[in-house]
C-alpha cells in the first residue's frame, strides 16, 4: 500500500482520524487490498494528491482513482469543499465519490447527493470486525462498479 508518491492507487481514502486510518489500513491489509489504497489526512491533501501537486509528484498527475472515500468533518478543508472542487473540475468530475461520515443527519445526506456524491455511507462501529464495512464498500467500487471516468 502506498501512502505517498503513489501513482497507481485505485482507491483514495480521505480521513483525518488516526485511529480510523489504522483500523481501515488493517482491514484492507487483512483482505489483501492494501496495495490499491492511498490514504490522505484532509481535504487539501486530497486535492494536492489528485492534482499531482504534492512534493515528489514533480507536477506529474497520477491516474485518477476508481473511487474516493471522503470523510466530511476534517481540518483545513472538509469533505464538502473537496466534493465541490472535484465536481467543478473537468478532469475529476466523473470520479465516483463515496461520503463516509459518522453523520446520520438527513440534511447531510441530501446535501452531499446534491453536491454530486455518488454514495453516502455512515461509519459503522463494528466491534467484531472493525473497519470491515470499508472493505465491503471498496470491493463494490473497485471490482463491481463501472464508472464513467
Amino acid at each position, binding site marked *: 500500500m502506498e501512502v505517498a508518491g503513489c501513482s497507481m492507487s485505485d482507491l483514495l481514502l480521505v480521513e483525518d*482520524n488516526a485511529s*480510523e486510518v489504522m483500523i481501515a489500513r488493517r482491514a484492507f491489509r487483512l483482505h489483501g487490498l492494501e496495495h490499491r489504497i492511498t490514504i490522505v489526512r484532509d481535504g487539501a491533501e486530497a486535492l494536492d494528491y489528485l492534482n499531482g501537486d504534492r512534493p515528489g509528484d514533480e507536477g506529474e498527475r497520477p491516474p485518477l482513482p476508481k473511487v474516493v472515500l471522503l470523510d466530511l468533518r476534517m481540518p483545513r478543508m472538509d469533505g464538502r469543499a473537496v466534493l465541490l472542487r472535484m465536481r467543478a473540475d473537468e478532469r475529476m468530475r466523473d470520479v465516483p465519490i463515496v461520503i463516509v461520515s459518522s453523520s*446520520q*443527519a438527513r*440534511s447531510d445526506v441530501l446535501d452531499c447527493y446534491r453536491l454530486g456524491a455518488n454514495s453516502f455511507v455512515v461509519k459503522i462501529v463494528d*466491534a467484531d470486525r*472493525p*473497519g470491515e464495512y470499508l472493505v465491503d464498500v471498496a470491493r463494490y467500487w473497485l471490482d463491481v462498479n463501472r464508472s464513467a471516468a
Partner: protein
Amino acid sequence: MRSQQAYELERDASVIARDSARAIEARIEEQDLGPLGSWARAALTANDPEQWHDKAELFLADHPAFSAIARVEGGRIVDVAASRDGREVLRSLDAGQLARSEAADPVGAGSVGPIRLADGRAVLLIQIAAPRLGEGAPKALAVLDPEIALSRVLEGRATGYAIRVLWGGEDVYRTSKVDPDGAEDRSWAVESVRFGIGPDGSVSVRANELAAGDLRRKAPWFALITGLLISALIASLVHVSQLSRIRAEELARANVDLRGRINAAARDQVEIHRLNEVLEARVAERTSELHETIAELETFNYSVSHDLRSPLGAILAFSAIISQDYGQSLDEPVRDYLKRISSSARDILSQMDGLLAFSRSGREEIRKTRVDVQKLVQALCDDLPEARGANAGTFLIGDLPSAYADASVLRLVFSNLISNACKFVRDGDPPHVEIGGRVDDRDVVYFVRDEGIGFDMRFAERLFGVFERLHASDEYEGHGVGLAIVARLMARHGGGAWAEGALGKGATFYIRLPVQGEADGSRRVLHV
C-alpha cells in the same frame, strides 16, 4: 320610636302636601272655574237668549270638563248647550233638584251637589246666578265632570296622585289611581280642596286641612259647592314621596356603592388585563427559553453522542484488534479484561445510538405525504428475520388505511413496534403479530398486537419514556428508546401513541395520526 329622620320625612311630606294642594287650587281656578265665573257674569248680563246659546257652546268647546250648561227660568230649563252626555244629566234632574238649585243661594251661585248617574259616575251640578241683577234674573246650571276637570288639573303632574270625592261622607268618586281597598285610611284625607264662588260671581278653590270626618259635619253649608270634597290622595303622595325619598337615598347609596364596585371592577379588569399581559409575555418568554434550552440540549445530546461515538468506536475496534491479532499471546486474565472493556464500550455505544436516534426523531424535518401504509407494513414484515426460518412468526396484516405522514417516520415507527412485538415473546416462542388500522372521524389509528409477555398496565405510561425498560437489558436487548421515539414522532405528527396489555397476555400498541392533509393537495402524493 321615631327617629329624627322619620320626623323630618313627615315634616317634608306635609310641606309637599300643602304645596300640592295649592297647585291644584291654582290650576282648577285657572282652567275651569275661573272662566266659568267670568263667563257667567257676561252671559247673564247680556240677557240675550241667542247670544247666551252661542257663548254657552263656545265655553263648552273650550272647557271639556263641562258637559252641559242650562238656562233656567222660573224653575224650568229653557235652553241647553250640551254634549250628549250632559243632556242626559240634565234630563235626569227632577223637579225637586231644580227647585233646590234655584232656591239655593239668592245672592250667589250654589251647587245642587253631585248627582250620581245610572252608570255610577258622579257629576257636579253648579248653579250660576247674577246677584246684582236681582231676584228675577235668569239663572244657569252647569254640569261639571270632576274626572275630566281633575285629570286636566293633574295633567302633567307626577304620578302617584289619586283623587277621591266625598259627598256627605259618601265616597262618590275616585280616580282609578285610588286603591279601592285602602279607602278609609284617614291619613289620605289630610288635605282637602274646596271649590267656592264668591258673591261677585268669581269662583275660587281653597285648600283646607280638614280631615274627612270633619268634612262630613261641615260640608253642607259651604258657599257654592259645599260638601264637595276632593281629596287628592295626598297621603299617597306623602307615602310616595317618603318612599321616593327613602328609595332615592337607598338608590343613591346603592349607586355610590355600585359606582365604587364598578370602579373597583374596572380597576380589577385593568389589573387583570395587565397581569394577563405580563403572564402571557412571561409564558412566551419562558416558552421560547424552553424551546431554546430544548434545542440546545438536543444539539448537545447529538454532538456528544456523535463526538463520543468515534473514540468509543476506536476502543471497540482496538479491543477487537488486540484480541484477534494478539489474543494467542495474551494470558487468560488479560483476554478477560479485554472482553470487559469491549462489552462496556458496546453498552455505551448502544445507549448512545439510542440517544442519537431519539435526538434525531426530534430534529429531523417531517415531510408529510400520502403513505400507503399497507405496502409499507407488508414490506417491513417481509424483511423481518422473524418472518423466515424454522421458528418463523406469523404476521397477520389487516386492511390498513393510508396515512398522511412522513413515510420514513412511519417506517421507523412500525419497525419499532413490530420488532418489539417480535422481541418480547416467551422463551423460544415464535412471534404472533397482528397489525390493523381504522379511520375514525378525525384520526387514523393503527395497532400492533402480540401474544408475548405483555406488561403491567400500571407501567403503561413508563413504556414510552427514554431509557425506560420494564425488563432487564440482558433479558431483552435494546437501548430502551424505541417507544420513546415512537411517542415523540407521533406527537410531532399531531397524533399520539399508547399501549394496552396485561402481564403474560400480550400487548397492543396503538398509534394515532390526524386524518387531515387531504386539504393540503399541493403536497399530496398517492401511494408512495
